C-alpha cells in the first residue's frame, strides 16, 4: 500500500487552520458592522453619545458572555453566570457604598478574587459529585440568587464612588486626560473589556493551562490520557467564568451606581446565545473570545437598532430568539457542528 499522502505546502495548512478557527468570528464582526451601519442609517445623528450608551449597556452582558465562553470551551456550561453577576454586583455596591475611589478599586480587586473562588468552588462541586454541569449550575444559580437577595433585599441600594462610576460611564479622556481629543470619544467602559482581555484572558491563553482547557473540551478522554488533570482544569475553567462574571458585576455597579439582585436569568440565557452566535461549539474545544464579544455587541446592537427604527422594545425578545434559532440551525451546522 502506498505511503500516506500528506499535505506538503505549509501555506495551505496554515490557511486551513486560520479558516477553521477564524472564519466564523470574522463573519460575526461583519454582522456587527452591518448592524452598526444600519443603526447609522436609521439614526442619522449617530454619534459619541450613542456609542457611549451602547457600551454602557452592553458591557456587563459582554463580560458575562466572556465568562460563559470559558465554561463552554472546557466542555461544560454555567447556568449561574447571570446570578453570579448579580451577586457580585450586589456585593460590590454594598461594600463600595461609602468608599473612596482608591478603596473602591481595592474592593473591585477583592470582588474579582471572590469571583474566581466562587467559580472554582462550582467546578470543585462538579468534580466531586459527578453531577452534570447543567444541574449543578442550575442549583448554584438558585443559591447565588438567594444570597444576593439576602445581602441586598431592596434593589437599587448600595452605591459606588463617582470616580469608580466614571471608569465605566465616562469617556477615556476622563480617566486618562493625556488621551486628549481622541480619548473624548472613546467610552471608558471599553477599559473593562480591555482589562478582561489583556490582563486576564490573553496571558492565560499563552499558558499551557489554556491548552489543557481546550483539550478538556475537545475530547476529555484524550486529555486525560495525555496526562491532563481533568479536575484541576475544570476548576480553573469555572474559576475564570466566575472572575469574568464578577467583572461584569463590577461593571454593572459602575454603570448603575447600585445593586440589583434580580437580574440574573436573562443574562445567563443570553450569554449562551452570544456564545453560540460567536462561533464557540457547545461541545467544547473550539472557538475563542473574539467571536462571542462581537456576538454580544451584535445582539445588544440589534436591540438598539430596533429602538431607532421605532419598533417597540418588546419585540427585542422575538428578534433575539429568531436570530438565535436561525443562526444555530442553519449556519451553525456548516461551521461548528452540533451537540
Amino acid at each position: 500500500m502506498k505511503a500516506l499522502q500528506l499535505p506538503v505546502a505549509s501555506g495551505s495548512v496554515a490557511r486551513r487552520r486560520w479558516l477553521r478557527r477564524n472564519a466564523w468570528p470574522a463573519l460575526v464582526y461583519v454582522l456587527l458592522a452591518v448592524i452598526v451601519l444600519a443603526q447609522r442609517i436609521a439614526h442619522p445623528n449617530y454619534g459619541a453619545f450613542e456609542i457611549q450608551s451602547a457600551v454602557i449597556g452592553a458591557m456587563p452582558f459582554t463580560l458575562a458572555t466572556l465568562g460563559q465562553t470559558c465554561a463552554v470551551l472546557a466542555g461544560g456550561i454555567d447556568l449561574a453566570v447571570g446570578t453570579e453577576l448579580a451577586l457580585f454586583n450586589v456585593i460590590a455596591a454594598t461594600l463600595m457604598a461609602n468608599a473612596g475611589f482608591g478603596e473602591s478599586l481595592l474592593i473591585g480587586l477583592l470582588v474579582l478574587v471572590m469571583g474566581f473562588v466562587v467559580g472554582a468552588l462550582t467546578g470543585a462541586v462538579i468534580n466531586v459529585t459527578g453531577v452534570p454541569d447543567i444541574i449543578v449550575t442550575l442549583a448554584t444559580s438558585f443559591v447565588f440568587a438567594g444570597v444576593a437577595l439576602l445581602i441586598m433585599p431592596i434593589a437599587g441600594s448600595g452605591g459606588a464612588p463617582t470616580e469608580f462610576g466614571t471608569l465605566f460611564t465616562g469617556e477615556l479622556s476622563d480617566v486618562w486626560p493625556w488621551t486628549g481629543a481622541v480619548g473624548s470619544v472613546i467610552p471608558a467602559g471599553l477599559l473593562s473589556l480591555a482589562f478582561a482581555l489583556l490582563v486576564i484572558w490573553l496571558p492565560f491563553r499563552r499558558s499551557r493551562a489554556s491548552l489543557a482547557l481546550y483539550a478538556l473540551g475537545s475530547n476529555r478522554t484524550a486529555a486525560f490520557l495525555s496526562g491532563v488533570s481533568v479536575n484541576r482544569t475544570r476548576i480553573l475553567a469555572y474559576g475564570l467564568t466566575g472572575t469574568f462574571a464578577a467583572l461584569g458585576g463590577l461593571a454593572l455597579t459602575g454603570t448603575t451606581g447600585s445593586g440589583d439582585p434580580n437580574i440574573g436569568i436573562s443574562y445567563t440565557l443570553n450569554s449562551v446565545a452570544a456564545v453560540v452566535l460567536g462561533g464557540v461549539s457547545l461541545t467544547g474545544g473550539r472557538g475563542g473570545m473574539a467571536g462571542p464579544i462581537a456576538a454580544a455587541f451584535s445582539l445588544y446592537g440589534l436591540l438598539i437598532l430596533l429602538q431607532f427604527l421605532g419598533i417597540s422594545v418588546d419585540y427585542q425578545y422575538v428578534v433575539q430568539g429568531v436570530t438565535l434559532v436561525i443562526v444555530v440551525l442553519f449556519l451553525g451546522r456548516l461551521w461548528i457542528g452540533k451537540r
Partner: protein
Amino acid sequence: MLDTDNLLQVTGLRKHYGAVVALEHANLGVRPGEIHALLGANGAGKSTLVKMLTGVIRPDSGTIAVRGREVRLTDPAASQRAGLGAVFQDPALAPDLTLAENLRLTRADPAAVRRWLDELGLQALDPGEIIADLPLPTLRIIELARALARQPDLLILDEITAALPSDLAESVFRVMRQWREAGRSVLFISHRLGEVRAICDRATVLRDGRDVGTLLLAEGGEERIVELMLGASRSEMQPAAARHADARQTEPLFRCSKLRVTGRLHDVSFEVRPGEILGVAALEGQGQDALFDCVAGVIRPDGGEMRLGNTPLALRRPADAIRAGIVLVPADRVMALLPQRSVRENIVLPFFGRLRRWGRVTQRWESQTVAGPIARLAIDTRAQRQVRRLSGGNQQKVSVARWLATGFRVLLCFDPTRGIDVGTKRQIYALLRELADQGAAILLYTSELAEVHLVCDRVLVLYEGQVVREMKGAVADEAALLRAAHGLTAEEAAV
C-alpha cells in the same frame, strides 16, 4: 516468574467490578532489551492490565515494579513519570488542537518528536495541522513519536498496527527493534499472531484474568498460543454442516454490483443466496465497515447498485433496509443496545418503528414476542433489569434476538463473535447455520479468520476495498485467508 532484574514486574494484579472479575491474579515480567507480546482474547484481562500499567485504573491488589522499584500509578502522568510510555487504543490527541499544541500540552520536546516522526516516515507532517484533519494512521504514528520522545524504559503499544498500512507498520517494527537494541523494552499488544511471531521475543498469554503461560516465540508455534488463549484445542470447534450443493440452484436473494464508496470501497460485486452464509474476511480497515454500512442503509454508496430479489434497493437510512428485510447485528454492542432498558424492551424495540405500534403495549404481547428468541438463544435474563449488566456474550445474543423477533430475509453480522467466550461463539455459529437452513441469506464478517471455514459456505476476501479472492468455505483455512487478506496472490505464498 518473578525476576527482580526485570524491567517491568507485575505481580498478583487483581481487579474486580462487583462480582465481575476482570483480573484475578496476573503476573507479567518484561526483561530489559526485549520485545514482549501480551496476548489474550477479549475479556481475558488484557485491556484491564494495560489500563493499570498506564494509570487509567488502579488495581485492587498486587504490585507493579519498574526496574525493581515498586510504583503506584495513580494516573497517566504518574505512569509516564515511572518510565512507561504508551500508545493507547483510544486517541490521546485533542482533535481541535494542532499537533504543536498537543505536544506543548504534554510537555513533549518538539525537536525529539520531529526526529522520531522523520524516522517513522512522516517527514512532511506540518506541526500546524489540526489533529481532526489528519487520518488515523498518522495519529498513531504521532502518538508513537510522542511516546518515544520521552525516552521511556518500557514502550507499551496497544494494537498500534490495527490502523496502519503495511509500510508504516514496517517502520514501527524497525523502531521497535532499535528500541530493543538500545537496551529498552516494548510491550506489544496485538491480535495479529503473524506479527507477534515476526518481531517479539517472548509472549505472555492471558485467559480469564490470569496469565496462563509465557512462551519463547522462537520455539512456540501459533497453535500453542491459540491453545493457551482458548483453553481448549481448536479442533474442538466442529464445522457446522455446510450445504454447498443446493446453494447454486436457487436464485440469489441479495445482489450487489459495482458498489463504490469513495476511498473505501471499489467495485464490489457479489450475491448471496437464500440458505447461504457468505463470509467476508479482511484485516482491519479494508472496507468491510463501508460495505456493511451500505447494505444496512447506514450510509449511501457513491456508486453501484443493490438488489433484493429483482427489486433495486435505494436505502437512505437503516429503516429502509429493515423494511426490506435486511437487518444488521453490529460488532459494537454499545451501538445496538439500549443500556438502561431491559432485555425484553431491547428485543421488541424495532416493532415501534411503525406508527401503528405506538399505542398500547400489553405484557402478553411482549412476553409472546420475546419468548421464542430468548429460548432459542438461551439468553440469561435472570434478575438483570438492565441490559448493560449482562455479559458481552449475552448482550450479543440480545442483538440477534431482536431480529429473530421481527423476522428478516437477509442477516448482516459484523464480527458477531468478537470478544465472546468460546461457548457462546459455538451457539451463535450454530444459530446462524439454522437460520440459513430456514432460508435466510447471511452476510458475515469476522476478524477471526480461523473460524471462517467452520460456518461459511463461501468466503470473499476484501483487501483495500476490493474483493481479491473468493473461496469455498471448506478450503478457506486461516493460512490461505491471511495470505489473501494481505493482498498476496496464491503464487506469492510468502508467510
